[in-house]
C-alpha cells in the first residue's frame, strides 16, 4: 500500500487516494509520425525491475497529475515532482544516485 507525496498540495496521499497513470515522460507522436515511433509511444514500455518513472493523479485530492521515481522491486520512492517536467529535477536524480549509483532509465542517468 503505497504512500506518495503530492508535490502540489504536500499531502502524503494513501494509494487509495491516488490513480496510477502508467509510464512517465512519454513523447506523443501524432499524424504522419513514423510507425515505430507511434508504436513506441502507445505500447512499448520500459517495465523495468527496479527504478521506474511513472504518472500518478491525486484523484481523491487536488486532482493534479504528478510524476514519481519509484523502484518496482522494493517499492522505494525516491521522490515526486510536477507532471509539467520534461525530465526529473536534479534533486530527484541526486536522490536516486545516492541510493542507486550508476542508474539509468531511457535517456536519463
Amino acid at each position: 500500500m503505497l504512500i506518495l507525496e503530492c508535490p502540489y498540495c504536500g499531502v502524503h496521499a494513501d494509494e487509495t487516494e491516488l490513480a496510477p497513470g502508467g509510464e512517465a515522460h512519454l513523447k506523443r507522436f501524432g499524424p504522419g509520425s513514423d510507425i515505430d515511433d507511434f508504436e513506441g509511444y502507445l505500447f512499448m514500455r520500459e517495465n523495468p525491475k527496479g527504478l521506474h518513472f511513472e504518472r500518478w493523479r491525486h484523484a481523491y485530492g487536488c486532482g493534479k497529475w504528478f510524476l514519481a521515481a519509484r523502484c518496482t522491486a522494493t517499492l522505494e520512492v525516491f521522490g515526486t515532482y510536477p507532471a509539467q517536467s520534461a525530465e526529473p529535477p536534479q534533486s530527484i536524480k541526486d536522490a536516486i544516485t545516492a541510493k542507486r549509483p550508476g542508474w539509468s532509465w531511457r535517456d536519463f542517468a
Partner: protein
Amino acid sequence: MSTRLSTAGRLIDTAKPIKFSFNGKTLQGYAGDTLASALLANDQLLVGRSFKYHRPRGVVAAGAEEPNGLVNLGSNGTFEPNQRITTTELFDGLSATSQNHWPSLEFDVGSINTHLARFLPAGFYYKMFIHPRPLWKHVYEPFIRQSAGLGKAPKDRDADTYEHFNCTVDVLVIGGGIAGLAAAAEAGRTGARVLLIEQTAAWGGRAVVDQPTIDGQTAADWVTTTLAGLAAMENVDIRTRTMGAGVYDHGYVLAYERLRDHAPKASGPRHRLWRIRARQIVTATGAIERPLSFAGNDLPGVLLASAVRDYAVNFGVGIGDRTVIATNNDDAYRTALALHDAGLQVPVILDARAKGGGELADQARAKGIRVENGKAIASVKGGKRVTGVSVCLQAGQGAVLEEISCDCVAMSGGWSPVVHLWSHCGGKLTWDEAQAMFRPNNDRPPTGADGEAMVIAAGTANGHLYTAEAIADGWSAGRAAAHAAGFTAKPEAIPDGSDVPELPLTPVWMMPQGAGYDLRSKSWLDFQNDVKVSDVQLAAQEGFESVEHAKRYTTLGMATDQGKLSNINGLATLSGALNIPIPSVGTTTFRPPYTPISMGAIAGVARDDLFQPIRKTPISGWHESNRADFEPVGQWRRPYAFVHKGESVHDAVKREVTNTRTNVGLLDASTLGKILVKGPDAGRFLDMLYTNMMSNLAVGKCRYGLMCSENGFLMDDGVVARIDDDTWLCHTTTGGADRIHAWMEDWLQCEWWDWKVYTANLTEQFAQIAVVGPKARQVLEKMGGMDVSKEALPFMQWADGTIGGFDARVFRISFSGELSYEIAVPASQGRAFWDALLSAGAEFGMMPYGTECLHVLRAEKGFIMIGDETDGTVIPQDLNLGWAISKKKDDYLGKRAQERSHMADPNRWKLVGLETLDGSVIPDGAYAVAEGMNPNGQRNTQGRVTSTYFSPTLGKGIAMGLVLHGPDRMGEVIEMTKGDGTYIKARIVDQVFYDKAGEKQDV
C-alpha cells in the same frame, strides 16, 4: 483424567461459573476460561477429527498455533465454522459442535482412512483415480471433497456488523508480552504516538506464567506497574484482543480487533479491522514451542509442554494425573515443576540430551521427579486418548526399554520465534544453530517508502529466549523505533530481568534418532492435514526438493494453522532426507494474515445499502415513488421504464415510445455529463479532443461531437454548445462524465500545460430534463417564459431564459428524432421543475419515459449509442461518421492511430440497418454468418448486430449492425445466428428507420 485443579488458575474467576454446550452436552466453565480450557476441565480431550485420516484429535496447544481444536460455533446468523477453541473465550450460552466426522465424534466412519493410511501416502491422488476418466468427476472427486473440508458451511446471512478504522502512528508495537510492554513504555516516554496491540485478552505473554523476576518484582507485578504507566500516557493507546494480522508496504499494517466474540450480547460491531500507517513497527510477537516427532505424537493427551503448563497455571486445569515429559531442552522442566506443585504426578522426564538439563533439572530431581537422560519416546499407547508410552534410547532405533503408563504426554522440541509479521513485507531470516531456530536477520529488515528499515523484531520474536535478554531487547527496540520515527528522550534504566541459567538444547527432529518406517509413518508433523515424517521423506525421494514443492506435495503447513507447529519440523525433516543443511532448504513464504480474519471484517460497513454508493439525480425521489423499474448505469440507477399497474415492463416501454412519438414524453437526463471548458485556448483544445472542428462553432449554437482514444477508437460522444467567446459546454454520456473530465485534465496538465484552459465538471450542478414529442413546444408555451418558437430557438441552438419562472438553459437538440428541448435548471430546483412540467403537460398527455424507451427512440432514428454501436474496438469510420471527422485539422487525438493499416482496411465491418424478413426481432448479440470455416475450424462471420429492438412505431423488429461492406450491400439478405444453432434471415437496409428526412425534429 483431565480435570479442574483445586489450585485456581490465574485467569479464571471461580466465583463466576458459565454454562456452555459441546455437541449438545451442557457443561460448566468459569469466567476467564477459553473454550479449550473449559472442555479440558470437563475431561473432553477428544475435540475433533483430522483432515485426511479422520484421526481422533485433542488439543495440543494453548494459543493461536492450535491445529486441532476447531469447532462449529453458534447457530443461524451467528454460526461460524473452524473456530479455534484455544483462542475462543468462554461466554454464557456458548454452543459448539465438533467437526469433520460422521456420524459422531466418538464413532467416525471416515476413520477407516487411518487403516488405509499406507495406501494414502503423500500425493496419492496424483497417482490414482486416473482411469476411467468420468469416474474422477462423478465418483472420486465428490468423495474426496466430502471427506475433506472441516467445518460446515454457514447458511444464513451474517447477523453481525463490522467496521474499519484508519490511524497513523509513530510506533506500532505488536505483542503485549514483556518485550512489547517494555518497547511501548520506552517509545511512549519519547512522546511518540504509540499503539500497542495484544491478540489475547491478557497482558504479559509467557512471563506471567513462569514468573521470572523483573526489576525486583514478580513478572506479574512488573506487568501491572508497566500497564499503569502506559495507561497514564496521553500519546499511547493499548488494546487487547487485537491481533497484528499483516504487515504491508510503506508501513501499512492490518490489525484485527475482536470486540464482541467474547460478549456476543453486547452492542456494536463484532470485529474492527484496523488499517494502520506506522512510521516504525516493533514485532514483539513471542515464540512458539515445537512438538517432537515420535510415533503416536498425535493422540489426544499429547500436548506441548508449555501448553500443559499454561492450562495448569492460567486455568487450573490438569490434563492428566500422570504426565510423561519428553524434551530436548530445559524449559520443559518448568512444566514438570508446575505439575508437581499442582499435586500431579510426573512419572518421568525423558530428556533426549545425553547430558540432560541444568539447574531446572536439579530442581526437578530435588522434588523426587525421575529424570532420564538420552531417553526418548518410542511410541505412545492409546486410541482416543493416551494410556502410556514406551521408552527407548534417543540414539537407537526404538527398541523398547520399558513401558510407562500415563494419561498425558508433554513434549518440547524447542522454540521457534514468531517471525510472520517480520517476514510479510520482505524481512529476511537467519538460522540460529545454537538455538536451532530461524530468527529475524536484523541486517535485512523490511524497508519502507524511504528505503530504510520499518520493522524491528523484539524479545523472544527476535530469538532472545531469556527474560533478561528479551525485556532488554524490547526496551531498545522501542527506543530505536521512536528514534527512527523522530522522537528521543533521556534514557532510563533498562528493565532488569533475571533467569535461571539453562543448558543448551540439542536439536531433535526425529525420536528416536534411528526410527524405522513403522515409527516414522506414525510420527506426525502436521496434525490437522495428517502429514507424517514418512510423507516428507517420500516427497524428497520423489524429487520434490524445494520446500515449496514438498509443502505443496504433502500439504504440510497448508492447514488452518499455516504450519505454526509443523513448518520447522517439516523442513528439518526435509533437510535430513536431502542431507543438506536446514538453512539451504529455506522456509516457505509467510503470507498474511497471521491467523485467519473474518471476511465480514474485511468488507466492513460496506454491505447492503452501503455496499456501493448509489448516485441519485434531483428527481430520483419521484422515480422511486412512481413505479420506476431501475437499471444500474455506472453508480447511477436510472429508470428503465415506468411500469403502470397491470403492465409488463415490455408494455410500459411500448406505451412510452408511442406516447412520446404522438404526444410528449419527459426524460430525466440529469446524469448526462456537462463539462465547462473555458479559456483563450479552449477552442484549440477542443479541436484536439474531438474529431470535429469545435473552435468554429458559433456562440449560441450546438454541435454533435465525437471523441476518440489515442488508439483511434470511439470512446464518447455528445453535444457541444458554444457559451461565449472563450467558453464551451461539453455534454458527455452518463458513464463518460467523470472519465472524460479526467481525460481532459490529463491532456491539459501533462501534454499541453502551456495552454490556457480551465475545465469544471458541472454534471451535478444541473438537473437536465428532456421534453420530447410533437407537443413539447405547447407544454413549454403553456408554462410561459422565454420564446421557444422555431424562429427564436431553432434546432441545434440553445438559449438562456426562464420557463414557468425557473431559470433555465434550453438546448434544441434531439436524440429521438422528435421536436425536443433539453432543459437544464439548477439541481436544487430540478424536482420542482419536473413536477411543474408534469402538471403543465398533463393535458397534452405527457408521460415520463425511461432508458429503454430512449434506446428504442434513438434506434428507430438510426442514432448510435456509445456502448452498443461501440465496444472499444470501433472507430468513427466504421459507423459512417466520417462527416463528423474534420478534414481541415492536421491533428486530433486518435488521428494517427486511424492511419494504421488495420484501421484503414476497406474490409472493416461498417454500420447498416437490419430488418428480418418476417418482422421478428433479431436476438441481442447475433452474428452474421459467412461461408466456410477459418483455419481454426470456426465458422466464418461477416458482421454482427449492435442494437436490436421491437419498434412500436413501425410495429416490427429493427436493428443496427456492423456488416462487411455493409453500406454497399443495401437490400442484400444475410443470415444471423439465433443462438440455438439455427439462423434468421435479415435484410441490409438504411440505418434510419424513422423520419429519414429528419423533418420532425426540426419543426
